[in-house]
């Protein structure tokens, strides 16, 4: 059975938490529920109310966009990625479905606690903003690329 200390070790390897001191990391590990998914199982579904964010510990997750029954994999996330944070920050339903691609292990952090963490550790907030900014930049670039492709 995995103990808190094992999970702290896992968390330490995640860049998001790099700046948090080990004793506090234990609290994060404690607050997080470890969830294990088999291939094809769903972490959360598009349109569901979101009450928690997830950090992928190992494995690959498909981000699936569902439109009128059709499912399109729009992205893939792997180790140490943060997912599901949008619903937590913005109080909106899940914008996409997240599905395990192969065996997936993730840490689930409840919404209230996640917001509390950010309040308590500004460095964490900084890192999350960075991550989100990167994603936005990537999305913008993708959008531009697809627009160019359409024009051609």
């Amino acid at each position, binding site marked *: 059975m995995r103990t*808190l*200390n094992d*999970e702290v070790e896992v968390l330490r390897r995640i860049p998001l938490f790099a700046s948090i001191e080990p004793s506090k990391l234990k609290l994060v590990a404690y607050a997080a529920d470890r*969830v*294990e*998914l088999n291939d094809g199982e769903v972490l959360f579904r598009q349109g569901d109310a979101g009450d928690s964010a997830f950090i992928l510990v190992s494995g690959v997750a498909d981000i699936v966009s569902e439109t009128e029954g059709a499912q399109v994999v729009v992205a893939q996330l792997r180790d140490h990625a943060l997912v599901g944070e949008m619903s937590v920050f913005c109080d909106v339903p899940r914008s996409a479905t997240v599905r395990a691609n192969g065996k997936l292990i993730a840490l689930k952090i409840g919404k209230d606690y996640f917001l509390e963490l950010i309040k308590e550790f500004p460095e964490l907030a900084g890192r999350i903003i960075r991550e989100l900014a990167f994603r936005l930049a990537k999305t913008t670039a993708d959008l531009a690329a697809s627009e160019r492709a359409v024009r051609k």
Partner: protein
Amino acid sequence: MERNLLKFIWQNSRLKQVWLLIVIVASMPLYFLTLELPKQIVNGPIQGEGFSAAGAEQPFLRLPLPFAEQVFGREIVLFEGFSLDRLAMLFALGLLFLAAVVANGAFKLYVNTYKGKLGETLLRQLRYTLLDRVLRYRVVRFRNLKGAEAASVIKDEVEPLGEFVGDAFSLPLFLGGQAITGLLFLFLQNFYFGILTIAIVGFQVWIIPRLRRKLIQLGRQRQLQARRLSGQVAETVEMAPDIHVNDISNYTRARHYGLLSTILDIRFELYQRKFAVKYINNLLMQFLSFLFYVLGGYFVITGRLDIGQLVAVIAAYKDLPGPIKGLIDYDQIRLINEARYEQTIDSFRDDGLLPAAIQQMPGEAVPRLREGFRAERARLEDETGRVVLENLHAAIAPGERVAIATGGNDAARIAAGVLCTALARLTTPVSGTITLDGKPLDDLPESLTGRRVAYVDAGTFFPAGTIRDNLTMVLKNQPVGFAEKTTPPTPPKGSGGLLHDAPPDETLDWIDLAALGLADKRAFDRHVAAVLDLAGLSRQIQDLGLRGTVDPEHNPAFCDKIVEVRREFRDNAAGFGVAGIVEPFDPKRYNAQAAIGENLLFGTARVPGWELDALATNPVLLAILDRHGLRERFLEMGRRIAEARIELFGDLAPDSKIFETVADVSYEEVARLKEMMARLRMGRQAKQQPAQRRPKAGAKALSDREELLRITFNYCEARSRFGVLDAETESDILAARADVRETVSEMEAAPVFFHDPDLYNPTATVLDNILLGRVSSSAVDGREKVLAAVQELIARTGLSDGLLDVGLDFEMGNGGRRLSETQRQKLHLARALIKKPDIIIFNEVLGALDVASRQATMRRVLALPLLGDEDWKPGILAVLLDDELAGLFDRVLVYGNGTLVEDEPDEIAARAGDGGDGEATADEKGAEDDAHAE
């Protein structure tokens, strides 16, 4: 009602009062015998009077005819008695004394019991009469009637009257008799002293009531203030949330304190006066003795009175103050009680009572409505007295669907609401008439309007009780088979306004299935289920059922089925998509999702001593731990768990959100843990330093070592992951588990119900019985998935009705507040449907629901056939919250120019529909629950 207390008591209990008096008089000789015999014993056998000669004998129980000498000129002895010597006489008299004492005691016992019963019976009737009045008040009156005040009158204020009733007549007569005898005796001794005494007593009789007038006034004030106090206290309790939200607790304190001080002032003045009166009273009596001694002495010394006479006068006077004082005290009690009684009667005045005939239980079935409501030139006022509807002509027949579309306009909504309350008889028109089936509404019995018309508004109040009680309450109109007409008891003439007819028994069968067109109890259960379905409550009540407990002895079939469902759930977990989410209880395996204590016990406690928090002090269990060498290990584990918790949460601020969101301990508990660990590190004797933690109210504080054990018992490795539980300990716990099972099963009444896949556990909830295991904490949304799977399984196995039945036993709590507001509004709707009325009035119902669910529910209610009954087509008058629904009605009324006029249903619906789009989707939902509305 009779306003004079004594008259009231006499009218209601004269025969019993006379009997009481007879018994008291009859007991008098015995009483005197108990006083007389000791004197005879002392004078006769002990001092030897009449036994001076050796071997002298005296007659015992000699019975001469009284006054024989005067009448017949010679003594006539009825019974010569037994001749006894001195010693025999002592025993004979002693035994006679004993017999007299016993008999006298028996009389006293009888009299006191009789008085008590008399008082309490009258009290019951008085309270019943007052309650009857409350039930017959017009609804308008309740706007100004505080529940707590009425309760305080009925419960507390009349209480002392009960004690007074038994004494009301017997005591003054008894004491009066004594006083008059005393006075007479005094007169016989000396005429002048008699006159003197009468003068002083007369003065007392004159002055005391005058002094007491103010006392009575104060008594009344005190009563009113005390009543206000109960009203205020009740209000404070009711508005507790508002008080906290608005920081008015200090103002509330001040308000209460002000009232309490007023009561103190009144009471203090009351005491001052009371004791002053007492003082004057005593003074006058003592003044009389002063006169006796001084005047009498003077007369004796001057030789106008001989000393023997004076001694006789003083001896006669000695017996006088007692009864007179008693009379004066009695008078005070009477006055206070009279004031109390008048006050009570006045606050329950007769004015505006509904005639008793209106609430009569009809012998036969209540006929169905034929014509329905008709309003002619009706003029209606709202609660503030403003006219809101004028010259209203409207009609609604059974089977007709009429809507009032208000478009959210305030004036229209108020007018429509007032019309609804008028049709429901909650208000009366100022002028014009409202008739039902051609008869004025006011003259109709409530048995007709109450059963054939239903009224629902946005109200959410329910009395405490189960959902079933509250749902079926509206069907309890009259006990089944109550053939003859029974008027609610009206006081007969000459009874002082008290009701003496008892109502039918509450425990009778009050629900008339035949009137609902139902064949038997099972059909009724189906009816209830259908009604709840219609109101959108079934699923939610089934959920409550899952959380309820069932006694297998009461419902064996259901419990057997649950055990089957349990098997199905376990065997077919993958089919429901919950494979591996529930870790089942297996006697041979350690359940990682359960706490250590649960694993050890492997069952649920039937007595408090075996509950998880009490295990640390359970000697049987501790002995088993020792046998497996687990106690020390558990202590060590407890220490490590405590340290881990301190490490995790020790640095957090007391107000940190983490305590609310993730920590399984509170800040205070962590602080206690810190203290405890410090103590343990200091190596102080733990037993002398209790940890001061009370696991449950009433349980004794645990010592530090016991607290450590308690922590371990509550610890679950899978949840907390502190890494304190190793595989070896797990297998030792399994061994101890077997030991516990063996030990406990040898006990006479097993304190633990062990997990058994083939048995239903009456101490666990239905859900826990189905799962017979723990939901894994590492599954995503494990609980929700499991719950959904269980519900699906239950629907599939046809257990829904049984579960609904369990859910209906859910206690709704004070004011029904354990259910959400939406649930309560739905329950009100269900109550209107369950009695199958001919006309239902919906006054802006289900306002707490979201638009989609509300519209879906209304569509279900408006669809036909309702509840599967082809013959039942109730007329509906609905004040709409969603004008889009107007199209579903036969006619629509709208508000204009101070009255309601007809409009085109489809047009209104179309106009309203432009703005909203919820209709189409809501319709598809059918009878499914609007769970997301909760």
